[in-house]
């Protein structure tokens, strides 16, 4: 597992978010092409459920990473300033990624998937 002060942390949260976003949009498209749920079911379909679960898991992982970086930033105050800078910034990146995941994923709970 990457250390909280590893420079890749500056991008990892949003890379994971990007992969989730591709999976969300791609999964929706493939789901609708392969086995479109009945439109009368509204948002209560297997596809919405799958996408919601994916969203929840991704957000949970991002929040966990946020917590990890934040705790590291608070506890390791004797780190080199540039390392501490990365850790704090990474916590911010994970926070942004988690919020973005939830905000973009919310429509899954209310809209039918394919029409």
């Amino acid at each position, binding site marked *: 597992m990457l250390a909280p002060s590893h420079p890749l942390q500056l991008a990892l949260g949003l890379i994971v978010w990007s992969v989730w976003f591709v999976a969300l949009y791609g999964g929706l498209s493939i789901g609708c092409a392969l086995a479109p749920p009945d439109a009368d079911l509204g948002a209560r379909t297997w596809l919405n459920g799958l996408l919601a679960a994916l969203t929840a898991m991704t957000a949970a992982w991002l929040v966990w990473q946020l917590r990890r970086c934040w705790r590291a930033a608070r506890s390791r105050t004797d780190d080199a300033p540039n390392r501490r*800078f990365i850790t704090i910034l990474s916590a911010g990146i994970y926070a942004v990624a988690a919020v973005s995941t939830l905000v973009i994923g919310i429509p899954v709970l209310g809209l039918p*998937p394919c029409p």
Partner: protein
Amino acid sequence: MNEPASPGRDRLDAELERIWGNPRGWRALSVVNHSVLGLRFMGTALVFFLIGGILAMLMRTQLAMPDQRLLDAEFYNQAFTMHGTVMMFLFAVPMLEGLAVYLIPKMIGARDLVFPRLSAFGYWCYLFGGLILISSLFLGLAPNTGWFMYTPLSSTVHTPGSNSDFWLLGVTFIEISAVSTAIELVVSILRSRTAGMSLDRMPLFAWYILGMSLMIVAGFPPLILGSILLELERAAGLPFFDVARGGDPVLWQHLFWLFGHPEVYIIFLPAAGIVSTLIPVFAQRPIVGYRWVVLSIITTGFLSFSLWVHHMFTIGIPHLAQAFFSAASMLVAIPTAIQVFAWLATLWTGKPVLRLPMLWLIGFLVVFVAGGLTGVMLALVPFNWQVHDTHFVVAHMHYVLVGGMFFPLVAGLYYWLPHVSGRMPSEQLGRWGFWLTFIGFNLTFLIMHWTGLLGMPRRVYTYEAGLGWDLPNLVSSIGGFVMAIGIATVLLDIALHFRFGRVALRNPWHADSLEWATGTPPRAYNFASQPDCTTRHPLWEHPDLPDGIAEGKHWLANAGHGRRETLGTDPVSGSVREIMRLPGNSWLPLVIALGLAVMFIALLARSYPIAALAALASVALMLRWSWVNGLHPALYDESGAFPAGALPLHPHTFDGPGLWGMGVTLLANASLFLSLLFGWFYLWTVAPLWQAPATSPLPATTLLIAALPLTAATLWIRRIVTRLRNGTAAHLQVQLWGIAVLGVAYIAVLVQVLIAAPLSPTRTAHDAVIAVFLGYLLLHAALACVLAALQALRVRRGYVGHHAPYETVIVEKWWSYTLLTFWLTYGCVVLFPAGWGGS
């Protein structure tokens, strides 16, 4: 510290000038110095800007009154297409990259960019690509289907002439320039900052340019791929976008906007970098929320790739998918807002001085925030549907792009003018220029929102009287001319200042960043010695730093070796790792770009043998370019290069700038490959008449046989690298020849597959995409073989070995990438259809 006895200031300057000085006369065409090239980029972009501006004036004259016949429909189509194309591809991106090329080494305390020949190559590609594109206007063959070239309008059926070809080939040529410059900027920022400039001390402008460059690297390849596919369709009949043969025109929209929306932020980020640099200087205090601003830059870079579908809300995408993109479009406003608040807080808590650049920054804040608000309106799907393709969208776009790019750009130009010329601009003329531009701009485009809300569609060359559009159009046209007078005033001010401007004092704005520690105008080598950076604000905390630098009190103050050198540092901490030897002036960038220009013109003329010859000649010259590298005598002087206890030269390391360059290049390459995969799966799932056989037409077993030599060669070169790291280089030359031979075996099998497979690339999109996959694999394999063979030759010459391992490490990355793309292609083209089944 690698700090020899400090020579006298004059002697040091003379020595450095002898090494770094730029030749004059016709030899100036061989210059690779970043300051010269940055200014060339900006000067050329200015000329293209004027051409784009004239087209805009023609359009505004045409629309000033109803039923005008000044321009006919065909020329109007060409005018709006070329206006958008010129402003986006020939002005905005190259102008900002030019500014970055000029400023970045100075801001990070380096002597030049790390790949100087690449800067020159990028410039020449830009110039020739721009000339090809502009020539179409004079030939009456300019692109005429809008700057986003939607298919099928831009396809052969509806545009049989060369108009679309000029766009596709010209823009691709220019994009080579943009991507190569971006790669150069990324590596320079990460690896050549001066000693001690850790990430948290890096100037914000460098953060912004890093963000912009990485976005170009990831964002331009989808359009490059789209342009290649559309040109293949137009020239060779491969039907990627033809519904009847299994293609889909919406694929073009996806590929275009995958590039097109990030492009807005690619333009905005460096402009915001100018704002974040200037506001603290004129507020006379450090920026509020440095970390927040960096967070916003990174966030914007990623989020802006998730918005592209909001340009396609009206094409029938499922509501849920529209909701994803609508939410993402609103989210992206947040990092921008964070920056706006940081700027306002800096002004609020500082002691702002209203100098000329600040005036333009205030104009930026007003116009850009208004453009951002209409952007949030357009992110709402129902509103978007209402105003789609109306002048409202045109007005919004200009508020964002002119407000977000042009106003900060002029602020920056005024701010750095004294750096370039050593003279100050006229405050009075400059203020006239600002107010005329600001009033003219708002008169034109604020009113245009109403024109759009009144229902006037964009891209109509005339309109009837009595529809309610007469007055707003007249006002917009008058405003357009007022704005043009304003811009002319600014240009006049800039031109006059070179002759009549007051001589600038040293650091005339009392700035904090290192570019003002060079001379004004700067020497070709920027810094006689490279300073230690101990703070984010070196010139505020050490005002006498420029003297120490000029007197050679810092790093690399010894030029007796006669080579161009700059420090190589750790990307995070900024601690010094090695000395980078940089190549000197060269004709190769110009000649190679000329070869590519011949190739593109031959493609336009459909003279394929000439195009092939020009391409081969260009590749051969590129190999010559790669030959003069590392330990080549032109760069390496064994006698004084590696004294005991001194820093190593980069060819002696495993982590030189070339490795980083290859890494970023492969990122761009991967973006193109992923776009191709996206196209494959997109057509497979969405294209209405997709025709795929039940099993793949490619022979699975033969391809597995092809994989054997490729996999073996890649593992072999990886083993060589491991052994080099352990200090062993036995039989290196023979091994590299062996790897090249294995590569040739792989190519032979692949060619056999291509010939034997029952593919009809002109009959179905399915087979056309497979043909592109195979072509991609072949190209990569061929280059991998040539690179391995070249390495073997370089081992023989003594340029590569255990004492100089870094090139082999770079070549190994190419082989690994080639192997990875093979297996991904195998999975997607052979295994996936077997699981999914045909249709």
